Every structure is written in structure tokens, then in C-alpha cells.
């Protein structure tokens, strides 16, 4: 229990600090920011070290922020109702996950576990909101990018859903799909909920 505590004291960080700025650029919402603006985010970044098989977060827990893998590998999985795990993705250096938690405290949709010893950067909502409050202009820029990212994802989900429905040739189900414009105008969460319900019916 205290191992992590001592590990964090004697972890000898610092050598990877210079790399933080380039790592942050990986995240689409921070892409295109000036060096000074990126430094604002660099100041709030947390460095975390995970051993192999150590969980980063669990499905259902309130989300706190986004993680960017600086070194190592992370497995994203969902626990199915029968108790078995379904692997969703394996993420490597430079990948990021959990970005939806930057918006609100809604529960994590999947669990994340380190596959090997990993060094991960964390950008968390309370400090992220703090920047938005202190630097509203920068905040507007970043939140617009976040909204664009979510909008893009919703568009992709809708397209995939439509092609999936067409593939299964179920006209009665197809008629249940709300018009594309309506889905797009809805909030992301609603869109995903509609998608999940339809997929369950199929």
C-alpha cells in the first residue's frame, strides 16, 4: 500500500521533464497552441509510474482526467456482465485515453491497466478547469477543440451505425434510427446512448 508512496518519493523524475511539451502536443485539443500556452498545461501535468498489471482506473469510477502514455503500454478493457474481460485496445507510446473525463465526472466507460512498467502523464479536470478560469481566451480555444473532437467522433459513430444497419438488412430497425441531423444536434452522450440502444436491439 505504501509502496507507491515511496516509489513516488524516490522515483527520480526530471529527466523526462523536457519531453513533456512534445508529449502534450500529441493530444488533439492542445494541438496548435503556442509554446507559452503549452507551458501553462505543462505546469499542471502529473507524472505517474505504473508497474505491470497495475490498474490506472476502473470502469464505473468517476473520471478525473486524460492520460498520455510517455513510455510503456496500456490495455483498455471492459468487464462484461458474465465477469469476463473484453479487450478494447492496446495503447503504446504517444497514445492517450480518458479524454472525456476532462469535461465531467461521469463514470469511466472502460478500465485501463498497465501491461508493462509505464510512465504516464496525467492532465486532470480540476486543474484543467483552473486554467480555463484563469486564462479564458486559452480556455475557449481548448474547449472549442474538445467540442470539435467530440463532434467528429459522433459523426463517425453515426456513419458506422448506418452502414452497420444497412449491412444487416433490417429495414424495420433502420426506420428507428433518428435522422442524421437530429443525432448531430444532440449532445454526445445522448448520441452514444441512442447508438447503444439500437445496437442492443440488433
Amino acid at each position, binding site marked *: 500500500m505504501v509502496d507507491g508512496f515511496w516509489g*513516488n518519493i524516490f522515483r527520480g523524475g526530471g529527466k523526462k521533464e523536457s519531453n513533456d511539451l512534445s508529449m502534450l502536443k500529441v493530444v488533439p485539443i492542445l494541438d496548435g497552441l503556442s509554446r507559452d500556452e503549452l507551458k501553462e498545461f505543462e505546469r499542471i501535468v502529473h507524472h505517474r509510474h505504473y508497474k505491470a498489471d497495475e490498474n490506472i482506473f476502473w470502469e464505473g469510477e468517476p473520471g478525473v482526467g486524460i492520460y498520455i502514455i510517455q513510455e510503456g503500454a496500456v490495455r483498455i478493457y471492459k468487464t462484461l456482465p458474465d465477469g469476463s474481460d473484453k479487450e478494447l485496445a492496446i495503447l503504446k507510446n504517444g497514445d492517450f485515453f480518458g479524454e472525456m473525463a476532462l469535461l465531467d465526472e461521469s463514470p469511466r466507460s472502460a478500465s485501463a491497466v498497465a501491461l508493462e512498467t509505464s510512465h504516464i502523464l496525467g492532465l486532470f479536470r480540476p486543474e484543467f478547469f483552473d486554467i480555463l478560469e484563469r486564462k479564458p481566451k486559452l480556455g475557449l480555444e481548448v474547449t472549442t477543440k474538445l467540442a470539435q473532437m467530440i463532434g467528429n467522433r459522433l459523426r463517425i459513430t453515426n456513419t458506422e451505425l448506418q452502414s452497420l444497419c444497412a449491412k444487416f438488412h433490417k429495414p424495420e430497425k433502420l426506420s428507428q434510427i433518428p435522422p442524421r441531423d437530429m443525432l448531430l444536434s444532440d449532445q454526445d452522450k445522448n448520441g452514444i446512448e441512442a447508438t447503444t440502444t439500437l445496437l442492443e436491439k440488433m
Partner: protein
Amino acid sequence: MDSSKHTVIIHVNRYFFSRLLKWFFVCLALGLVITPFVVMKPLLFTCIVSLLLAFLLEPAVRFVENYRIKRTWAIGIVFASIAIIIAFGVALFLPAITTEIQSVSANLQLKHPSVLTEELKMTIEEKFPLMKQRGLSEELASYLRSTLDNLIEKSFEILFEFVHIVSMIFTVPVFTFFLLKDGQRIKKSLIQLVPNRYFEMTLSLVHKISRQMGSYIRGRFLDAFIVGVLSSITLYLLDIRYAFLIGALAGCANIIPHFGPVVGAIPAIVMALMATGSFTSVLVITICFVAIQLFDHLFISHMIELKNIHIHPVIVFLVIFIGGYLMGAIGMFIAVLFTGILKVTIIELIWSFKHYRIFNSKQK
């Protein structure tokens, strides 16, 4: 078979002792950090006052920062503005308050306590002849005499306290400056030390608590300030002596919920009674104070969301008692603020325990 059992026991014991040793060192480190604060009360006071000030000034610093000004400069601007406001305040209100304080202290110093109490006794007997008949005025006078004697004896202690206060005038701004400037960094470094399993929970908990704590402290002080100003104006309009002093006292007392308003009204009522001796003025002042409290409860405290942290009157009473016993008058205020903070912490902790799976160590 026996040997394998033996090995398991040794393994468990070794694991247990290594954990015990680590926890021992953690406790030792915490003890080493906390002890100086407990031993040196002025240091503790300085830290608490600086922390309260940092919470109070944070919104002002953020407001300046919004104009694309660096944080250090923003803090500097806020400090300079406060210095200017204090200077103006001193220039405007000091003559009035100094005259009031001087008149109070002159009354106490020029006349011997026994003469003063005798005068008071005479006044009371003159205005309330009923009290003389029952010997109540004599009792009151002797009680006041002994209290005043004690006060003079304690004045040397107060002088020593004064030295601490002067040193605090220099140390508090410095502490506050660094808390405002590096507070975030200090918080981040402390959160970094938390083990991975508790990390997300701690991070969210710390931020929620500090946000609620900030709004609670700011709310209580803003509320006290408004009540203080309203009381001063009312007393001034009613032409009560020492209006500003009593108003300021009523404002300070208002930091303590439930009991503060009552305690704050007493000096005003006593002063009115001594000046006029008529119960009509007492009634008028009481009505005014009740009206101010009503206004405060119905409008002000709702506006600054003080109702969110409601502390039960019995708990407030107990806490004031403990705070007063440990640290005197300032202790009472600190204890009340501390209780509010503790309540917020407990509420957030319960929420976190319900939503995070921290007790389940067998997670995959």
C-alpha cells in the same frame, strides 16, 4: 508439509513488519512536521491567518490574471491595492475609531477600577432603584471590580502578545504571498506522493475540498463584513456611543454562526443601557439587530451560499468551547471555520468512498 507452512508464516510476518516499519516512518515524518506548529503557537497562528488570507484573496488574484498578467505580478497588484485601501480606510475611519478607543481606555485608565465600578454602581442604583433593594448592584459592582483588576494584571501578558502581533504584521503578508504564488505547486507536489491506487480519488477530493473551503471562508468573512457595516451604520444613526467599535465587534462575532449575532448585540445593548438607562432604546437596538440578522439570513447568506454548510447549534457551541479553551478568543473563530472545513471534508470523503473502488484490492 510442515516446512511449507512455516515458510508461509515467515513470509507473512516479514511483509507485515516491512509495512509496519514504513507506516512508522510516515507517522514519524508527519509528527516532525506537526510538532513545531503545536509547540510554537505564533507560528501556527501565522500559518492559519496566511492560509485564510490566501483563500480570501485568490478570486482577486484570478481577476487580475484574467487581464493576461502573470500571477506574480497579479499578486503584487492585489497586495498594492489592499495597501492603498487600508491606507484610505485608516485615513477616513481611524480618527473616529481612535477617539472611541481612547475614550474607552481613558475611562479605564484615568479612574481607578474601584472608582469606575463605584460610579457604575451609583448610576445603576440611581436608574434602577429596585436593584439596590435586592443588593444586586453591590454584587455587580464587586464582580466588575475583580474583573477589571484581573484585566490590569493581564495587561503585561497582552503586551507580550502585542510583540507577536507586530511580528505577524510582517510575516503574514510574506507567507500569504508565497501561498498564493506557489500554492498550486505545493498542492501538486503533495498529490504526487499519493500511491497510484488512491491517486485519482485524492486528486478529486483535494480539489473539491479546497474549492468548498475557499467559498466557505470567503462567504463567512463577506457575511461578517456586511453585518459589521450594517450594524455600524444603524448604531451611528441611533446615536449610540462607540458605534463603529461595537459595529466592528458585531461583524467579527458574526463569523460564529448561531451565537455570534447574540454576542455581538450585547455590547450595543449594554452601552445603550448605560447611556440612557431607558428600556426603549434597548428595545430599538434589539429590533435593529434582529432586523439585520433577518436580512442577513433571508438575502445575504443565500446569495453567498452559506447555507450549504449548515452546522448544528449544539456542535457550534461545543466547538466554540473547545476552541476557546485551546487558543482563546481567536481559537473560537478558528474552531468554527475548522468545523465547516471538516464537514465539507467528511461529506466529500463519504462520496468518494461510495464511488471509487479503493477497498477492493483484488481488482484485475
